[in-house]
């Protein structure tokens, strides 16, 4: 089935390829959720693809639309000057009278411009003609068909409350998009949901949307990660910590996700940093540290204390420290940002320090947490990175992860711990799990020295 791209970031993904040409899409939602912006963006993207557009507005002044659109970099006035766009401020009865005639000023305009996309904003105003559902349904059906017969793809907006039963308009159109608000803790965010598509599939569920400087961006909940020609790293990526590498048979297979777990102060950040540093300095690989909790300065100071000049590696383009304020980013957006960094740098080793802040807005929803960790792991696998996902556990407990979901989803689990013996603490490291790789089980002693982590595993005939 041939589909046309809406051109709206992420929308074509959740519409599984876009819209069917000469179809009708209803955008419904409460006030302020972005219906008009999404509709205008659909028209603008059509114009950018050489498809002239028509906006029929029953309420908003064209002048206001020009101003709003200009904030997203869309110069609607210029598009009108170039005869690629026409914004008609009019009344429902005028549209009814003139669009349903086989000839007339609106038909002439559509023919003259070669209009391919139309936005009607909003069909709620047709109730000014009649309140009766039967005639309204007939009117809408006729209007849509009049435009479809001209091979025009139509978008219609409709105002609705936060909770409303399906209405007759939903039966008349080919696809329905619902915009709404969701509460995450104290904050409110906009979401989009495809309710129906005729003739093609769509990704169900609510997806997060954001108003960016270039319009609306949709962050699909499940996006398929495709990485062309992933970097061909060596068979194993060593951590450079000799005892640990001996425990896992030389290093970690590229694409393996490791849950790095342990109470505060047991060396999780240090171990991840040391592995990244060694991989860069000894093997010429690249590495990225995604920070969500720790501040960049404190992490760089920590590394500097061990003699690892991460700033120098960053200047040389081998290392990247990416700090995301998790309170300002939605998870889908966060994962997208990570993907962009991986595509740009192509690192062999990455670390997320730490995982729980990334998942904070999932409100302990175990299904969503599982989905997101799975998605994150798939992202790192697609890029063939060894990934360390850091989680802090409680001292003196058998807890391995923060949510109880991570251990099943990650390929490996490395637990760092410390136990009190008399007046001293002894540190330990345990490779609890490592899928498809032989490894030494059980706790081994380790220490954090001035030069970093040292693991006391000797192995057969080896030395410390």
């Amino acid at each position: 089935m041939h589909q046309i791209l809406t051109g709206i970031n992420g929308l074509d993904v959740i519409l599984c390829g876009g819209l069917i040409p000469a179809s009708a899409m209803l955008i419904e939602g409460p006030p302020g959720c972005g219906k008009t912006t999404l509709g205008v963006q659909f028209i603008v993207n059509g114009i950018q693809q050489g498809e002239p557009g028509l906006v029929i507005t029953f309420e908003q002044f064209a002048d206001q639309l020009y101003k709003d659109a200009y904030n997203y970099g869309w110069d609607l006035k210029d598009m009108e000057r170039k005869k690629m766009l026409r914004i008609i401020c009019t009344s429902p009865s005028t549209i009814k009278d003139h669009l349903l005639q086989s000839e007339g000023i609106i038909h002439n305009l559509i023919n003259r411009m070669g209009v391919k996309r139309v936005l009607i904003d909003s069909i709620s105003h047709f109730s000014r003609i009649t309140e009766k559902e039967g005639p309204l349904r007939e009117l809408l059906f006729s209007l849509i068909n009049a435009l479809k017969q001209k091979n025009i793809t139509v978008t219609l907006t409709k105002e609705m409350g936060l909770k409303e039963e399906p209405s007759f308009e939903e039966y008349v159109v080919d696809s329905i998009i619902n915009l709404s608000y969701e509460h995450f803790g104290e904050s409110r965010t906009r979401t989009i949901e495809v309710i129906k598509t005729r003739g093609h599939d769509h990704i169900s569920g609510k997806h997060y949307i954001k108003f960016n400087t270039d319009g609306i961006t949709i962050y699909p909940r499940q996006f398929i990660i495709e990485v062309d020609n992933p970097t061909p790293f060596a068979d194993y990526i060593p951590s450079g910590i000799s005892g640990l590498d001996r425990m896992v048979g030389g290093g970690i297979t590229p694409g393996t996700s490791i849950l790095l777990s342990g109470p505060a102060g047991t060396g999780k950040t240090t171990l991840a940093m040391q592995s990244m540093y060694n991989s860069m300095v000894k093997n010429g690989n690249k590495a990225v540290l995604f920070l969500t909790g720790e501040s960049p300065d404190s992490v760089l100071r920590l590394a500097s204390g061990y003699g690892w000049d991460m700033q120098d590696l960053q200047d040389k383009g081998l290392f990247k420290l990416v700090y995301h304020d998790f309170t300002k980013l939605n998870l889908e957006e966060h994962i997208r940002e990570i993907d962009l960094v991986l595509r740009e740098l192509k690192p062999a080793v990455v670390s997320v320090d730490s995982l729980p802040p990334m998942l904070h807005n999932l409100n302990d929803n175990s299904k969503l947490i599982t989905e997101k960790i799975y998605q994150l792991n798939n992202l790192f696998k697609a890029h063939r990175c060894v990934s360390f996902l850091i989680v802090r556990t409680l001292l003196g407990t058998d807890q391995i992860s923060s949510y109880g979901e991570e251990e099943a989803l990650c390929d490996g689990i490395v637990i760092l711990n410390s136990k009190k013996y008399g007046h001293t603490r002894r540190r330990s490291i345990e490779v609890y799990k490592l899928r498809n790789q032989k490894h030494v089980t059980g706790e081994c002693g380790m220490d954090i020295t001035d030069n970093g982590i040292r693991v006391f595993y000797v192995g057969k005939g080896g030395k410390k």
Partner: protein
Amino acid sequence: MKDTKGIEEILNSICDSIIKIGLVIFLHQNQGALDTAEGLSRWLGKTEKEVKHALDELVNVGIVEIFGEGPSAIYSYTQDECILQVIEQFINGLSRENGPLNKAMSLLGGGK
């Protein structure tokens, strides 16, 4: 180049009516407007009768075009570039601090 002198005279003459000024400004800012007298009266927040009267005068001077007749006749703004340029200058003049628009607005209790 068209002789715009006549248009300028007409534009100056419409300053006698707030409705006509309001219509010209509305149509100039929303050049794709296409509606009946009743519809345009809603956009302007005026009565249909006074808007219809003003529209007819603007049709006569070529600033507004009319399609059809009777209550379902629809009106649209001129697409004549020459007239549009003159109206642009006219509106800019109206908007000046001591221009007639501000005077009219102050009489109405508003400001610009």
